[in-house]
């Protein structure tokens, strides 16, 4: 009897495994076909996984707008669209870090997204290579063509001559400096590295828990975006036009060493939290009056109304001074809309067009400084200027921000080298530059050696 049961059991195990693998293989091939054939057989996406009418179109939006007011605005916009057109729109809010995984892993399944509202992913090239994102040139045309946007950089990245993204705001890394502290110390706005270091030194009073600045040194998106400004402020390039790694070559290496040494000097004027700082820690330190300088998007100003009302009028936006005082530098960033390939591409495009034509200002109003309009006519419009926090911070945030956009030296990992390719994505997602900063600042390694090692690692990764 014992043998018989054993055979039955073994059969069950084998059968169940075989059944599962067979099923998943079928699904897999079906999915691959779907993707190639433009998803014409994919069932209608259903928002919550609880089924739903197959004829009824439901648009699923993956949104990285996690802050309370923008999130609410997005949900209201979705509801209004449903009321007006009968097309159901579901907004799924998620953290930017998770978005690529979610979008990618659901692609081609019944739970796939149709539209992405996301921060600068730096991975758009990869999404494009996989055929996940759809070109949006036709939508841009309907909105009035590329000239409606603020600056040519806002349409980055243009891949193979096509646009895959419509930016809805510009997020240059903005330096916030406490003007009242400057006054108190009798200092003026720093214009080069020496002056900047001086100011930071003057701000620092460790006994009273006051520090010059905080930069995000934790490995992550904040570090990639903000801390790399020290490179751009000294014209350091990671790639040349042919996408060769030149970080460790000639003068460029010299400049990179200078940048790292500058960062090292700055580190003396940072609180210990900088080592683990990500976005929230920057806000905490600046709102708490612990530091006199930090980088952030316009959100710092918007949220200060609630979190630190006393700060109003006590800070101003600036870029990071370039080494020899030749203006300022900053890192590029934006938030944009992508449309994801699938059965609902056309519906999604209609929604996006409607959004930009009818509801753009509604979203912008939810965080007016953070959502610095990518469309120049909106920036110049009275409606925008009369939004409460825009009005309040007009001279301290909006005007200097516009100046930075026009004049500052702008770069970013994702803009490094020639046109965007997967190579920049790899550098961004591997966090190799943040790791480099940590090795020098926290690990006390020799900048020159770290640069050589990092450059070689990048070469290996993009081979």
């Amino acid at each position: 009897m014992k043998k018989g049961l054993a055979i039955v059991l073994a059969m069950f195990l084998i059968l169940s495994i075989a059944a599962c693998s067979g099923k998943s293989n079928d699904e897999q091939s079906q999915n691959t076909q779907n993707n190639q054939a433009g998803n014409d057989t994919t069932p209608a996406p259903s928002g919550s996984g609880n089924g739903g009418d197959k004829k009824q179109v439901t648009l699923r939006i993956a949104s990285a707008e996690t802050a309370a007011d923008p999130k609410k605005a997005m949900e209201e916009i979705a509801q209004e669209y449903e009321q007006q057109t009968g097309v159901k729109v579901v907004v799924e809010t998620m953290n930017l870090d998770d978005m690529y995984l979610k979008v990618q892993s659901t692609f081609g399944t019944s739970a796939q997204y149709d539209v992405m509202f996301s921060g600068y992913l730096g991975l758009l090239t990869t999404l494009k290579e996989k055929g996940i994102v759809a070109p949006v040139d036709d939508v841009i045309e309907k909105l009035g063509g590329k000239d409606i946007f603020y600056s040519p950089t806002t349409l980055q990245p243009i891949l193979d001559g096509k646009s895959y993204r419509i930016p809805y705001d510009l997020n240059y890394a903005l330096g916030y400096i406490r003007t009242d502290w400057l006054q108190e110390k009798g200092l003026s706005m720093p214009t080069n590295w020496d002056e900047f270091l001086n100011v930071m030194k003057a701000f620092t009073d460790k006994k009273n828990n006051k520090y010059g600045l905080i930069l995000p040194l934790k490995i992550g998106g904040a570090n990639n975006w903000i801390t790399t400004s020290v490179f751009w402020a000294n014209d350091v390039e990671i790639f040349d036009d042919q996408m060769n790694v030149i970080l460790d070559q000639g003068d460029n290496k010299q400049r990179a060493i200078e940048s790292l040494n500058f960062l090292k000097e700055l580190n003396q004027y940072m609180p210990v939290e900088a080592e683990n700082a990500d976005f929230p820690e920057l806000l905490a330190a600046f709102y708490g009056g612990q530091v006199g300088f930090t980088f952030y998007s316009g959100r710092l100003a918007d949220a200060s109304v609630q979190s630190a009302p006393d700060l109003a009028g006590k800070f101003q936006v600036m870029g990071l001074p370039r080494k020899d005082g030749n203006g300022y530098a900053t890192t590029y960033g934006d938030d944009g809309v992508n449309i994801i390939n699938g059965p609902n591409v056309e519906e999604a495009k209609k929604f996006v067009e409607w959004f930009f034509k009818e509801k753009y200002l509604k979203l912008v109003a939810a965080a007016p400084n953070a959502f610095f309009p990518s469309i120049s006519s909106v920036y110049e419009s009275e409606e925008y200027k009369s939004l409460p926090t825009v009005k309040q911070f007009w001279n301290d945030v909006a005007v200097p921000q516009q100046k930075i956009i026009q004049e500052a030296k702008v770069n970013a990992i994702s803009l490094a080298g020639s046109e965007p390719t997967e190579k920049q994505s790899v550098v961004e997602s591997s966090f190799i530059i943040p790791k480099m900063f940590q090795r020098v600042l926290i690990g006390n390694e020799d900048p020159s050696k770290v640069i050589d090692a990092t450059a070689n690692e990048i070469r290996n990764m993009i081979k």
Partner: protein
Amino acid sequence: MQHKIKRRDVPFVLVNLVPGLILFAVTVIFPAVMALRYSLYESDTFIGKPKFVGLHNFAELFQDKHFWSDLSKTLIYAGGSVVFQVVLGIAIALLLNQRFAGRSFLRGATVLPYIVPSIVVTITWQWMLNTNYGVISKFLGYFGVYQFNFFSVDMSMITVVLVSVWSFTPFVTLVFLAGLQTVPEDMYESAALDGAGKWTQFRTITIPMLSPIIANIVLLRGIWMFNKFDLVWLMTGGGPLERTETLPVTTYIYTFSQYKIGYGVSIAVVSFLIMLIFMLIYLRLMNRANGGTRT
């Protein structure tokens, strides 16, 4: 008493065994087999066609110096937290085994940390250890220590170990408590009559009686901590300077942040093989302790 299955028992056995085994096969066996398959492929998505690379992932892994340093960090994390858990677990179990007012209340209270979700554990301790606003930083201030960073490059591993100890010791305590309750009271009484002090009793009675449980705990908890992902990931994200990057964290980073799925899974497979060695030692010990038969 176990016996062989008779013919009339067959329907009963099948009805009870089959649904569960199917569920087990689907949720555990099949994914584990799939994991082995994944590790032989190179892929950056879960959809689409992966590329077969044979043992290439493993070859690359063994040459990767990050892997070896992450392995040593994992051993430090698992070893460190288990040692503290065992020492504290025995101490608290001895306490809870005594008679004193409020004992049953304390028994309940000591278990509380065990049921706190890791995300809440993280929030709790990051708040308490916050350099500027944390209550523990305030406490350190009384000793003249200011601006202490619990998550600095030198402290982060220690902090993560200690928080893990807070979170996971209760389970160990309960197991030791169970063990202590099996020690006959009269062993202590006769030892006391022989003039043995408390310490001698502890050394000659308690520890030997508990030693099989200690061996169990060290092995099982060690494996459990070796595989721990969420707490480490949420507390530090593996940083700073990769000082808390244990193998599960590395697996996660490769798989979900760098999209090298095959490589990520091959790390999980190697972790499993390492743990399997300890597991087999454990099963060996257990079977020997039971004289080869389970009773």
